[in-house]
């Protein structure tokens, strides 16, 4: 059992936020930027978050403005080695996207206004993209069209030849069938050795690995495509018909359905009709192998999210711990339904949402406003 109490982790995070802000403020001021007093992205459960599959370091995402004209900005601040690497990778990944054969027009990028490394801090300042309404506040038809457009844009970047592969390997991470399987086996081992013991989840994940292994060739068949492994509403902004991608650190070359899988799994919780619409679209318009690939990658991503919350549960206490336990139970139920190719009972989702909303702190509720 992880013995880091929630209070300590939370207090440690608060101290980290205070210290980073104190270090960053004079640098930002010297470059003509100021931080807002209210920083929603440091609140709630933010302290527990960390990326699971992409190299991610500790960093702060802050809101501020340009002092000369009040232009709203987003500021990323880090002095953690992994965090600096992530910010540098994001820069390179953005630049590389413009070079490779890719419908770059589909994904617009918030302008980078400042990138500095001073006094041990790495600071990136980006234009803030205001949107009239969040992704999930839009009609489901519009959500579907936006999602489909962006998935198609990603698919257009397909690295197949030796020269393509050489070029992308210099910048992006690349996953093939063997790496997906090995990573999934790591999820199982991680869950198996975590506390509290979860033999049912371990058995479920083992069944999923058997399915992935059996259809390994289908996973490999659709590899080599650009995919955004965290393509979910909080990483995009929509202004009119223009889609802005906010997170470039989760781009990699892998199975073309990995991004679809993450998005669809997310929508099982947030908008089930949209999840169904995307699955139906693939079934009606793509090859049977692609439907299999989507199913496999959904299993992969569900294994990942289960493992994520098993870890988050171990790191937390009190209501947050209860909530993370409920998350493990919910995502395990989703995994089981996908594995059995059965629909998830609506009551499972409804009961989870009810419990989640009752357990979320006020800070977390504030952080969630307009997030998706």
């Amino acid at each position: 059992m992880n013995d880091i109490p929630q209070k300590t982790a939370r207090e440690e995070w608060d101290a980290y936020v205070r210290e980073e802000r104190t270090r960053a403020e004079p640098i930002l001021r010297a470059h003509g930027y100021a931080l807002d007093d209210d920083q929603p992205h440091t609140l709630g459960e933010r302290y527990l978050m960390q990326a699971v599959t992409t190299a991610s370091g500790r960093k702060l995402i802050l809101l501020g403005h340009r002092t000369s004209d009040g232009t709203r900005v987003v500021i990323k601040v880090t002095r953690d080695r992994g965090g600096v690497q992530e910010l540098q990778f994001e820069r390179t990944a953005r630049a590389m996207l413009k070079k490779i054969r890719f419908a770059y027009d589909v994904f617009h990028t918030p302008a980078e206004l400042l990138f500095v490394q001073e006094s041990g801090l790495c600071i990136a300042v980006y234009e803030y993209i205001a949107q009239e309404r969040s992704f999930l506040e839009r009609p489901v038809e519009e959500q579907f069209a936006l999602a489909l457009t962006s998935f198609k844009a990603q698919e257009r970047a397909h690295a197949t030849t030796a020269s393509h592969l050489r070029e992308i390997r210099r910048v992006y991470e690349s996953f093939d069938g063997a790496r997906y399987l090995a990573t999934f086996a790591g999820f199982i081992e991680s869950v198996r050795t975590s506390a509290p013991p979860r033999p049912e989840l371990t058995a479920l994940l083992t069944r999923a690995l058997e399915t992935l292994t059996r259809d390994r060739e289908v996973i490999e068949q659709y590899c080599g495509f650009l995919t955004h492994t965290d393509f979910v509403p909080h990483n995009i902004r929509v202004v009119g018909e223009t889609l802005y991608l906010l997170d470039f650190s989760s781009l990699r070359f892998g199975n073309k359905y990995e991004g679809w899988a993450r998005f669809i799994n997310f929508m099982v919780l947030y908008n089930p009709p949209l999840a169904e619409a995307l699955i139906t679209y693939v079934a009606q318009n793509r090859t049977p192998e692609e439907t299999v690939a989507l199913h496999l990658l959904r299993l992969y991503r569900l294994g990942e999210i289960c493992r994520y919350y098993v870890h988050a549960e171990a790191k937390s206490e009190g209501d947050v711990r209860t909530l993370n336990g409920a998350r493990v139970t919910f995502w395990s139920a989703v995994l089981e339904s996908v594995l059995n190719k059965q629909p998830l009972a609506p009551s499972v989702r409804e009961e989870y949402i009810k419990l989640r909303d009752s357990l979320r702190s006020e800070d977390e509720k504030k952080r969630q406003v307009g997030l998706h």
Partner: protein
Amino acid sequence: MKIVIATPLFPPDIEEPAPYVKTLAAKLTPTHSVTVVAYGHLHERVEGVRFVTIDKRAGRGLRVLQYVRGLWAATRAADILYVENGPSVELPALLVSVILRTPLIFHLGDARAHERAQKELFRGLVERMVSARARVTRAESPLPRPEILPFEPYPAAALAAYTASWDKHLEQLTQDIAHE
């Protein structure tokens, strides 16, 4: 008839002519013996179609040589060599067709490759040589398959037009194949 389709792209590649070639192979299979020679890694399957796949991950020179070898072996007993445009296929197809004296039908299914051939001397020369060798060169392609979108009406008319465009294309192709 024994037909060999030489193509630079085949699904899971998504750009044209990959989807076209896959549909063409599927539609020709009931009445012909079809072999597809394509660059790729793990291609999608079509029931009844034989595949010769040249791994794209090899270096350019090596993979073109491998393509020539694969195409040669596939075409030796073929009645028709159906060639999709693109320099990586045009040169091998020209060589194999001339030496084996296999009748060639040339399809300009990749508009972007054709456009580049208009602008670049070498590519243009190769394309013109293949066209000169071909029994017939066709630029027309059937309509792309309309998508069935969950929140939109079923595209019955568009699907009917798609089917009709393929019928017309196959009718034309049958005449081209039968032409002596």
